[in-house]
């Protein structure tokens, strides 16, 4: 078997058969049970007609059954396509169509919602009550002999993760088995994740960072505790009572954990088992760092950076957080980060260039999208025969080699840990029968990354009542895409001759209306940034 997640699971189940692998509110499994569930799931998938290389959607809540489903698809030599359960039907339809999905595994509670896709893909229940219309994996597993027939190689496709692009519909990022295995190895190396670790998992398994927690757990024989963060005190109780040693988070999760509107139980618990907190998906503010340090004095804090196309690019060593708090650190093991100018030349220190990533975690490109793949996954004359990820992100390196994030190259809005395409928001807003044009704008808010503001014009030339407009949008968009600010314009400024909307002027006017200053961006002193002032 090649180095892969299935192999890691087989080895760990052999080595630590009775050690607890995953714990949830309702049940827990040992490594041998997890392996057997995954093997039985794979056999079920095969009997249900899933072929090697088939795309299998997983639209489930975070449960042990979800982990079994993900692993079962990998063991069946098929490709995992995670689907965020909160997505609206149109987005799910797009992913089913675009990936050519052979089967969709979902929770019994979600079956009525997804039944409209029954003619497009085979529906399978992965968790919950038995239904006569659709096969139920937990039920079928009881009658199936677990059997190992995994024979993919490292270069074979393991997952497609859909992520919003700056234009059009979400693109599928194609990930090989080798990428997943390398991602587990690399992250476990620099975080020093070990067998004794108890990882508190508040992340979802619908994106690379969350799934990597499963991979690390399996690789190292650690234990993963599943938790849905709703009220922070429940999370603090879990961390203390289960002696959690590792807590992977994101800025938006830290904001929720230390919500100043709520009384928190942090003082009444002992968190001394916690070895590290790691975070990716946005910058950590001084407040966030202070809250983390004050609450978890024993924990090292790792600030990390990356994009799904190359999984993870950099991390900052915890002891550099005080001296370089605004840095995204240096390249992760087995990867290199280049800062290149427009001609592909390496930028000298303190000169802004594009972050270009090379090494183990470079994924295979966008699924069935050669045009966009060619824009991001490119070669460089210095590295013949190799594909690098040209992120589009603007960064700068200081004299000591520490990297600093300056700005994104695309127009994406990064909110609550999601990449949101302005175009997608605008498309839904303009579906409203009264609305003519809409422009979605990112408004900086370090607590969530960015808020979405949406400026709009109407047929009647009158503003729409905000509660009804908001209600309408909540029906059309997943909650993380519903704009925080809805701003009416009598008319939009148009650029000179092209007759296009003057997005820059609209953005400026929106910022004025919201009473905030234009993003510092270019005017922000590089020296101030690097000196962490």
């Amino acid at each position, binding site marked *: 078997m090649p180095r892969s997640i299935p192999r890691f699971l087989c080895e760990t189940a052999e080595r630590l058969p009775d050690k607890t692998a995953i714990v949830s509110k309702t049940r827990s499994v040992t490594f041998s049970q997890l392996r057997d569930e995954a093997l039985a799931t794979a056999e079920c998938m095969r009997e249900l007609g899933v072929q090697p290389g088939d795309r299998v959607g997983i639209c489930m809540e975070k449960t042990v059954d979800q982990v079994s489903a993900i692993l079962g698809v990998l063991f069946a030599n098929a490709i995992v396509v995670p689907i965020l359960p909160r997505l609206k039907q149109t987005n799910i339809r797009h992913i089913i169509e675009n990936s050519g999905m052979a089967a969709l595994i979902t929770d019994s509670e979600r079956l009525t919602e997804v039944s409209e896709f029954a003619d497009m893909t085979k529906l399978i229940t992965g968790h919950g009550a038995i239904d006569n219309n659709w096969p139920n994996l937990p039920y079928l597993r009881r009658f199936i002999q677990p059997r190992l027939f995994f024979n993919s190689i490292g270069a074979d496709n393991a997952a497609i993760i859909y992520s919003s692009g700056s234009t059009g519909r979400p693109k599928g990022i194609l990930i090989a088995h080798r990428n997943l295995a390398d991602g587990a190895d690399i992250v476990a190396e620099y975080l020093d994740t070990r067998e004794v670790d108890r990882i508190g998992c508040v992340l979802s398994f619908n994106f690379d960072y969350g799934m990597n927690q499963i991979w690390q757990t399996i690789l190292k024989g650690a234990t993963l505790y599943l938790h849905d963060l*709703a009220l922070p005190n429940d999370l603090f109780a879990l961390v203390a009572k289960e002696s959690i040693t590792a807590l992977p988070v994101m800025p938006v999760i830290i904001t*929720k954990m230390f*919500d100043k509107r709520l*009384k928190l139980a942090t003082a*009444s618990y002992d968190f001394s088992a916690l070895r590290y907190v790691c975070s990716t998906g946005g910058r950590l503010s001084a407040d966030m760092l202070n809250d983390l340090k004050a609450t978890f004095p024993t924990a090292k804090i790792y600030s990390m950076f990356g994009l799904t196309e190359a999984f993870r690019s950099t991390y900052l060593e915890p002891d550099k957080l005080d001296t370089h708090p605004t840095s995204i650190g240096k390249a992760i093991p087995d990867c290199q980060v280049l800062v290149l100018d427009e001609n592909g030349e390496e930028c000298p220190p303190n000169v802004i260039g594009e972050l270009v990533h090379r090494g183990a975690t470079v994924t295979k490109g966008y699924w069935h999208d050669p045009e966009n793949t060619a824009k991001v996954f490119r070669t460089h004359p210095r590295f013949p025969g190799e594909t690098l990820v040209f992120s589009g992100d603007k960064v700068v390196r200081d004299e000591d080699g520490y990297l600093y994030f300056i700005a994104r190259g695309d127009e994406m809005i990064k909110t609550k840990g999601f990449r949101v395409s302005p175009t997608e928001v605008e498309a839904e807003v303009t579906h409203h029968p009264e609305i003519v044009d809409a422009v979605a704008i990112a408004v900086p808010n370090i607590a969530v990354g960015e808020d979405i503001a949406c400026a709009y014009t109407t047929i009647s030339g009158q503003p729409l009542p905000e509660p009804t407009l*908001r209600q309408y949008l909540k029906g059309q968009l997943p909650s993380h895409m519903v704009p925080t600010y809805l701003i009416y314009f009598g008319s939009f400024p148009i650029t000179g001759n092209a007759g296009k909307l003057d997005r820059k002027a609209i953005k400026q006017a929106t910022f004025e209306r919201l009473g905030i200053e234009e993003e510092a961006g270019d005017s922000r002193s590089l020296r101030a940034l690097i000196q962490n002032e």
Partner: protein
Amino acid sequence: MATQLQVLYDFIRTEIGYDGALSPDIDLLERQILDSFSIVQLAVFIQERFQIELEAEDLVRANLGRLSNMIALIDRKKAAKGQLGNQGNG
């Protein structure tokens, strides 16, 4: 005067923007009627609207995950307040 349940229903409909079926015993988080943002909104609203102060041990899913739990919590807090001789009479 609106019942506590009615007040909570109204908040979920108008402020949270949920217009599907509601009943006191459904798990609002599991059914994705509330998320981690809106449950905090609701907790803040409960404190203001019912003039009670929620302590750290009150602010857990066991007390705020279902409407029936919330009403029990509100009643408990009000009763405790009454015993302390404060003016709370709801």
